[in-house]
């Protein structure tokens, strides 16, 4: 498992992660999992990413009011909130998981999110 794990929806990241790595825009140990919608993401998947070795986990979904599936990214943000609570209960830094929002097909916020999380890990 890469040290930084990101979950993105189909509508945010439009570039291959390897291309971003080649350009040195994101950390080498970044792994991104694409979901049809971040609303599909459940708390256990976030926690399991840590169990499998991730040091920081982030989720990038559509802007809340422009979600392709209406409320998917809003739901994802609530799950991230609960995952933070569990990390806290386990004496882990809750900032090791974070929700970010991006416009359709925007790569930059994803790159920014990956860098932010790499600095927290």
């Amino acid at each position, binding site marked *: 498992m890469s040290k930084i794990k990101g979950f993105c929806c189909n509508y945010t990241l439009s570039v291959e992660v390897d291309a971003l790595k080649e350009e040195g825009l994101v950390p080498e140990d970044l792994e991104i999992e694409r979901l049809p919608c971040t609303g599909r993401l*459940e*708390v*256990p*998947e976030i*926690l*399991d990413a*840590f*169990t499998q070795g991730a040091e920081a986990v982030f989720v990038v979904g559509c802007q809340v009011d422009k979600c392709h599936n209406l409320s998917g990214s809003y739901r994802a943000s609530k799950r991230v909130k*609960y995952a933070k609570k*569990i990390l806290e*209960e*386990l004496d*882990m830094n809750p900032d090791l998981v974070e929700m970010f929002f991006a416009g359709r097909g925007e790569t930059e916020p994803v790159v920014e999110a990956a860098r932010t999380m790499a600095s927290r890990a």
Partner: protein
Amino acid sequence: MIIAERKPMKELLEMVSDVKKLLIVGCRGCVAVCSAGGDKEVSILSAALRLGVKRAGGEIEIHEDTLVRQCDPEYIDPLNDKGAKYDAVLSMACGVGVNFVADRCPDVNVLPALNTTFYGANLSSGEWKEMCAGCGACVLHLTGGLCPVARCAKSLSNGPCGGSQGGRCEINPDVDCIWQQIYDKLSSMNRKEELRQIMPMRDWTTAGHGGPRRRIREDLLP
């Protein structure tokens, strides 16, 4: 419904510290509706325990299951054989379910994952409020439907105590004085005169003060 909430992770990790093989069993009844112990919460707790145990340097094998209810024999009796294959069964039902598993599944080491808190209603997503204390002698017909047993901090029967100020309870300004609300409700229904009638002293044996309660309906017995 019965409202419950997950115990803190530290308490749960301590509880399963010697457990190598664990079965987490949810309940699709009340605790699923109040988002404390249904299918979803089972898988979250399972993932949280895996992470917690790993961080503590331990190992645990966790399996998941959810029953329709844990307060009916037909659903929990099969758990005796299944649960006996595990070091422990962590029940995500209310205390009723945990007790019933303990009573009927002698080969199972059952542990509680939740704190059972009260009988309440769902005010909005993520917010529940106590409404009834199961006193066994309901007086709501006298109080405009508002419960003075569960919703008055002192369970008073004949009006507010001296600490009722501005419609708020003296225990906490965020808590409504239910007797003020009863008065307002009966007034709005032109029934306020009924409050002059003194409620007799209550017999609390029906409320559990006379020991564990049991209800029998002859016509339904097998």
